[in-house]
């Protein structure tokens, strides 16, 4: 028995910060989530799998996913021709709504409802059970895993679960909860970073099929799972059109614009990559070079790269010569007071009333990132200007 476990296809994801690049690149990025999805279905045909599991967040945006739905329906119909079944759940992005889906999927597709249910099928004389549920609202705080039945009378049982470990907004669970069910495979979705949480039995986050922003790093893809003689093996198959990378170079005192560009060229060698570059020790650079970077001249220089794309540059200014060590105590003592989340929220109501900014502030890493940014800002100002 063979099946594919994919999740978080996020078909139709838009990309930010690409306006300056060639229209060809913009077009390729726009299509990338479709292209990655096609790879999933083509692999299903090539590897003659029995079924495909899609563990939620298949569409990026449910309001208007007609094009994505039509695309998916076509793919499903192709699967139908090859006798490949599809088992899917909706996640927090594409949670089910009443006026959902004017386009009906063919009958080889099983969509799980809001309650935990088990579908059964027979492959190679094996009775296979697949258990799962779909999101019917954006957040599911209930302990859904407790509603999953213990292993039934199946030769092989799979659990599909779109959730975050101990994440109260998204069907919180612990790996031990899953293991206690006695299933043979847990097909997870929701987390975009690929991770194998457990090996026997497999509990796998396959990650998304295409990186969606600069923080969504590395090769993306899905798992081809083979069950032979009761032994399960999972093989990762890459599907990303562009791979997001982070790179760091160190600036030197005598670096010029040209020498920096040549250092960066040496890094931009991998095909189909979108690189976010940190220039470390930017305080060592001369004012002219810093101004050139700030004006985007380096980005502009690499703008026409076809395959190894320079996406963004972050100059990182470090403290020079143990700057003001004698006052470090006072910097540290005032830090807590200055980096106060409530104080930041109260700083300007107009800004906090904006939903995008409010969500940004409420993100877990916000203060940590802000500390880095502030230190960077201070180092830049104090050293350079």
């Amino acid at each position, binding site marked *: 028995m063979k099946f594919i476990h994919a999740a978080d296809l996020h078909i139709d994801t838009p990309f930010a910060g690409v306006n300056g690049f060639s229209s060809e690149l913009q077009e390729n990025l726009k299509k990338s989530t479709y292209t990655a999805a096609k790879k999933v279905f083509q692999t299903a045909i090539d590897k003659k799998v029995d079924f495909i599991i899609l563990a939620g967040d298949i569409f990026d945006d449910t309001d208007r996913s*007609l094009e994505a739905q039509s695309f998916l329906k076509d793919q499903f119909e192709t699967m139908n021709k090859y006798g490949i079944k599809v088992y899917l759940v909706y996640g927090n992005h594409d949670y089910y709504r009443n006026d959902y889906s004017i386009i009906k999927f063919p009958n080889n597709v099983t969509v799980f409802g809001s309650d935990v249910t088990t579908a059964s099928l027979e492959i190679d004389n094996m009775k296979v059970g697949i258990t799962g549920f779909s999101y019917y609202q954006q957040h599911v705080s209930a302990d859904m895993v407790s509603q999953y039945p213990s292993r039934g009378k199946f030769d092989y049982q799979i659990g599909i679960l779109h959730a975050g470990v101990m994440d109260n907004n998204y069907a919180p669970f612990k790996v031990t909860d899953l293991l206690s069910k006695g299933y043979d495979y847990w097909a997870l979705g929701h987390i975009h970073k690929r991770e194998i949480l457990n090996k026997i039995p497999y509990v796998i986050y396959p990650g998304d099929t295409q990186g969606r922003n600069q923080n969504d790093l590395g090769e993306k893809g899905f798992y081809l799972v083979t069950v032979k003689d009761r032994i399960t093996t999972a093989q990762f198959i890459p599907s990303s059109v562009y791979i997001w990378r982070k790179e760091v170079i160190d600036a030197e*005192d005598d670096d010029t614009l040209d020498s920096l560009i040549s250092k960066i060229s040496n890094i931009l060698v991998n095909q189909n990559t979108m690189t976010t570059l940190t220039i470390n020790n930017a305080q060592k650079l*001369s004012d002219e070079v810093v101004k050139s970077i700030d004006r985007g001249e380096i980005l502009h220089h690499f703008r026409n790269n076809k395959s190894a794309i320079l996406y963004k540059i972050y100059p990182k200014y470090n403290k020079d010569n143990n700057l003001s060590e004698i*006052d470090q105590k006072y910097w540290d003592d005032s830090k807590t007071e200055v980096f106060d989340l409530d104080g930041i929220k109260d700083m300007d109501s107009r800004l906090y009333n904006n939903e995008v900014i409010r969500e940004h502030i409420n993100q877990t890493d916000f203060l940590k990132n802000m500390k880095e940014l502030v230190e960077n*800002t*201070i180092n830049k100002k104090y050293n350079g200007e």
Partner: protein
Amino acid sequence: MKLTKIKIYGFGKWIDQEFSINADYQVVFGPNEAGKTTLLMFIKSILFGFATNRGENKYQQYKPKKGTQYGGELEFSDGDSIWTVVRVDGKSGGDLTLLRDNQQVPNSLMSKITGGFSKEEYERTHVLNDESIFSIYRLTAEQLETEIMSVGAVGSKEWLAVADDMENDSDQLYKSRGRKQPLVQALDQNQKLLKQKSQFDNQQMAFKDTKEQLKALQISASENHLQYQRAIEEQNSLFGLLKKWPKYQEYKQMAQKNINEYNQITTDDWEESLRLNQELITLNNSQQAASLTDHEQSQLDFYRNNRFELDDIKKHKNDLQQLQFKIGDINRSLNNNDNQIDQLFSQNPQMDENMQPLKPDEMLKLNDASKSGLNTPLLAVSAVALVMVFFMSGFLKFAAGAVFLVSLIAAIYQQRSLSNKSSDDFLKQRGYSGLSKQVVKQLQTSLVQLRQIRESQESLEKSLHESESELNQWKIQLQKFNLNVQTDPVTNIENYFDQIHLIQTKIQLINSTQIESEHSHIDRIEALKASLSVILEHNHVSTMDELTNLHTEQKNNRNLINQLKADKVYIGEDMEQLNQFKSLSELSDRSKKVDEKVRQFEQANNQTNRQLGSLKEKQEQIFDDSSYRRLISELKQNESDLVELYDEWLADRIAGNWIHRMLNLASENRYPKMLQTAKHYFNLLTDGNYVNIELNDQKLKLVKSDKIIFDVHELSKATTVQLYLSLRLAFITEIYDLVNLPILIDDAFVDFDSNRTENIMELVKDISRNNQIIYVTARLTSEIDNGHILKLKEGNHA
């Protein structure tokens, strides 16, 4: 640590020089250009590195002009060990070597000497020169007060400037009541885009709506088209009626004449009566006219001479008549066909005489061309829709059906225009240049019809030609016998033979008269009269004249009936319709109305077609959805801009806050102790005018010798600067255990009067109990112990 020795290899003007330095304070005296400032620069450079040759720094380079080695040594003492700092020319600030008691130690141990200070920090705390004092003078009262309050941290002045800068930067990005700042604009843009997004209907609902609208419109469009077709038909039929109206009028007038076709006088009766009558006349006139007149004789002679041909003519008289009818028939048929051709052309305005109907293989070619390069996406949509028809139920099934039809039609429609070019050539040859494939196909039926009519026309014309030439031969023949009267040769022949008959009868009579006896005449006349009266009676007339009249009338009637028959055939099935109109004006009124109706339907048709087109476009737009996706893309970009700008703005704001907070915290912690020291320095610098500095509620209060208390902003500028200096020096003393570097004073107090300068020397001595001071000046105004003075001359170096 105390600086004990300066050893210069080469630095600016200085080459191979060595100076010993006092551990408490060292006054370096020399005129301008003696190299005093260079000496201080040397100390800073050896400690923290040479100025690099970049930017403004390059003017601070002191590379010796001659070939001597750049750099030198500084010797420090911590009471136990001698530390030697050696720096010579090298990469980024020069090559540093650190020795402790002549043993090299790691460079990182430099912090033992510098206390972790950077060159800038050192300059900001321990170095006092004209520039730093004047910059204090230049501050506004308010700035100065802030400066004074934050003097408790290293480089507070610069830090405050940085904080100011940050606040400026943040204001450039966003102000809560601003309009033009980028973050404000991004916020506005965000609102705008969200509004636009909400204006987009839910795509799926919109798709459904459009599909329903499209379906309704398609129904009304097809109804409209049907009505249009009907109107066109009516228009054509009325056009035909109008053409036939004159004949119809003629027919109606003739039909009104009461034509009696009954009781025809038979040919036998007629000929017999003529013969009898002639014989009677002859018998009655037998005495006087028992001979033929000359005219009669010549006629008879002519007949006898040409008897064979003339009898033949008589024999074929009916053929001649048939021939005439036939020609009439053909002419009517030709007329009919002409009408049909006219109708075909009026129904197909694009049709042209030059067009030839396509042969089957050419039709195939036309269809083949259509198949190549099919519009796959559209066909795919149609296929999807078709599949949906099967999979879905209820309304959706209809909707899908509609999509299927629409997309299929659209595909064919596109196809038509596509394949035009490929088959242009043979279409041009066939006379169809400039026409779409669809039109060409539509024209085929009419063209075939046209060809058939044309063919029938040809055969009719041929047969007309034959008949006419046959008739002509007859006419030549008749001409020969003077029988050809243009209008009615048959009647003429009949009349001729009637006459010949009369003459023959007369001859018979003359002959018989000559043979028979006289008395038999009367019997004969009686018999003739009886026979004649039987015929007359049979034909319901009393005299021979009446019979002749009746015969003439009947002959006319027969012509009329023939004409009527011909008219009826010509009018054909239209008769009933024509009967519905009382007059030509009624018919033409009707025709005009129908023309108007056709025009209206045409307009309505065009309008619905346009509406259909725009609806289909809208539907495609919804499905393709590019404008919405553009908006989503823009929104995504805007959100990323918002976050980025907000982060930048917040970082500036927090950085500013943090600096202020740090400075305040440092001051709060250091001030109480600093004030004790500063009070003494302030007293010295103000020549005893001020006796105390108090800190109340984060505010400094200055107590004059007369116990009057002043706020900082109440002081004179000079006094404020003295207060600042006192605090700064107190600060250096305060951090003495953290950073113990020599204080460098470069003629910083030149503008102070000599009294105060003396006080400053007091101050210097006072401070130097803890902190080493190197005081560089061009004036020696008070007595200083010679052992503390290093006198530089211009000749000292090089």
